[in-house]
């Protein structure tokens, strides 16, 4: 059996010493290719958890491993490189750089990571070919659309471009932080299905964070952040000194 794609052990985190912990996760694991729905109301430590997993924040105690690599022991620059190589991230909205055309936005991960560039070329021959394939799979294949500035796209189209970008160069783990909350209700399920099938196709694990329980049934594994986070949510969400 291969190493879990993500593994948290006894992780605690607080923004400043003297403040209470906002996050305390005794154990959490994700297997390669696994799709997980993580529910969490705002203030439950979602952003904090994602920052830790992405290697942008470091835990106060405990270990975080991604693909068997001890993220929490890496130096800052090594974490940055690791994130560039192995993670795809989709935010709630405004995912795209407004000054780049659609295709250039999708190609961004390959600019910051040689490994992803190499993987994309190995799979599809060129980075552009992979970008077009992913965009096509997500229903965005019209040439004029790819040349348009991203600001001319609808929110739904923008989120799909972001999904294509997150999948470029086959990262091991895709993190989606409330990617559907800006979409119309009938578009949400469609987006989740597209994202899920593309993650499956590229073999990426998907950590899908949302408070929209109607989407939970589309994931084989569902859990709530309140279950895995042992820190007192009340004190954690407040910023009382």
């Amino acid at each position: 059996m291969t190493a879990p794609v993500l593994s948290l052990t006894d992780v605690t985190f607080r923004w400043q010493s003297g403040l209470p912990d906002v996050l305390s996760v005794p154990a959490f694991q994700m297997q390669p290719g696994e799709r997980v729905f993580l529910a969490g109301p705002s203030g439950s430590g979602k952003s904090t958890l994602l920052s830790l997993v992405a290697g942008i924040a470091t835990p106060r105690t405990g270990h975080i491993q991604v693909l068997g690599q001890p993220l929490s022991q890496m130096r800052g620059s090594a974490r940055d490189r690791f994130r560039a190589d192995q993670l795809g991230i989709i935010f709630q909205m405004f995912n795209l750089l407004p000054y780049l055309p659609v295709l250039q936005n999708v190609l961004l991960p390959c600019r910051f990571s040689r490994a992803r560039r190499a993987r994309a070329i190995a799979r599809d021959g060129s980075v552009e070919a992979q970008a077009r394939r992913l965009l096509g799979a997500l229903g965005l294949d019209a040439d004029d659309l790819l040349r348009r500035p991203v600001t001319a796209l609808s929110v739904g189209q923008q989120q799909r471009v972001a999904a294509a970008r997150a999948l470029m160069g086959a990262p091991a783990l895709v993190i989606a932080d409330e990617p559907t909350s800006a979409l119309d209700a009938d578009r949400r399920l469609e987006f989740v299905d597209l994202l899920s099938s593309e993650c499956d196709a590229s073999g990426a694990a998907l950590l899908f964070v949302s408070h929209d329980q109607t989407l939970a049934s589309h994931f084989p594994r569902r859990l709530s952040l309140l279950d895995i986070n042992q820190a007192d949510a009340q004190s954690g969400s407040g910023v009382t000194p």
Partner: protein
Amino acid sequence: MTVLSLARRSLWNRRGTAALVVCSVALSVALLLGVERLRTEARESFANTLSGVDLIVGARSGPINLLLYSVFRLGDPVNNVSWASYERIAEHPQVAWTVPLSLGDSLRGFPVLGTTQAYFTHYRYGRDQSLALARGEIFDGIFDAVLGAEVARRLGYDLGDEIVLAHGTGAVSLTQHDDKPFRVVGVLERTGTPVDNTVHISLEGMEAIHVDWRGGAPIPGLSISAERVQSMDLTPDSITAVMVGLTSRRAVFQVQRQINTDRDEALMAIMPGLTLQQLWDLMRVGENALLAVSALVMLVALTVMLTALLTGLNERRREMALLRALGARPWQIFALIIGESLLLSILGALLGVVLLQGLALGASGWLSGQLGLTVTLWPPTLHEMKILAILFAGGILVGLWPAWRAYRNALTDGMAIRM
């Protein structure tokens, strides 16, 4: 290079604000370089005004005053030099040559100089250059005039034209010497010195137009025609100043002392090179003030840039967080901002230099006409290069603060994208 191309495209996306910043930098660069260039040109032009003259002799006043009215035709002499004193100086054994200068009249604002033909032989400017005629010849008759290049150009006079001199040195004069018009016989080549702005006539001509005058006004009832005046003795009673060349340069202090201590008349002799230097030192305060103001303008431009960068930073916080999520390292975020400020400075400097070239090209005629300055356009001097280097350093320095803030934001914002 990823970061550089991103910085460029991001900047292009905010080109409205960026253009304003570039313009303010450009204006400050143009101002600073312009002041600097004028300063250099003024100094050059100054030092090159007069050479080859060992002493200038005038009525006893201040050395700078004497230099101003005799060489630059600025201001008025306190007194004249009597013809007897002039002859005494000319006959001094160590004096090789003398050129009398007589001032006080004007042609539509341009000063008129009464002198002898020796003026054209002995006057030197720049690197030992002599005056040369563009066309025509040096005055010979009493009512002949030789125009400086700028006078001819500005007033549109050419050979054979008749000109009427005015009494006094103002641009508008009520009393004209219209009974005795002069004829243009020669036009000089451009020199970049006050000679360009001068109308040269013979000393006799100067005397002739004043023969029926006394105390600065025509004598009522007395009018001597231009024909009659030809037969009169036109040796003047006095002149304004004398340019003196010595047989040996080593005698300069001795002759100067002798003239300064002359018992018959209160005279003063100055060494033009030395006094030019003193005059320049006198202007250094103004020159430095000008430089300080332009330096302040550059500071303001850099502040404008800082403001724009800091304002942009808030708009771009999301952009930075996105780039971080995509794997951009904090130093790349840092470089993004520094690169932007450097790019703005470079664009501003380039535009400023172009602007200055355009201005200099457009204004060079006016500058040489009004100020006797010739403005060279290119290449920039070492000093100007230094100024540009300081600007670039300033641009980087100004970028440091926002870049550092972006760097810190990148570290602390984490995955939270703040609006």
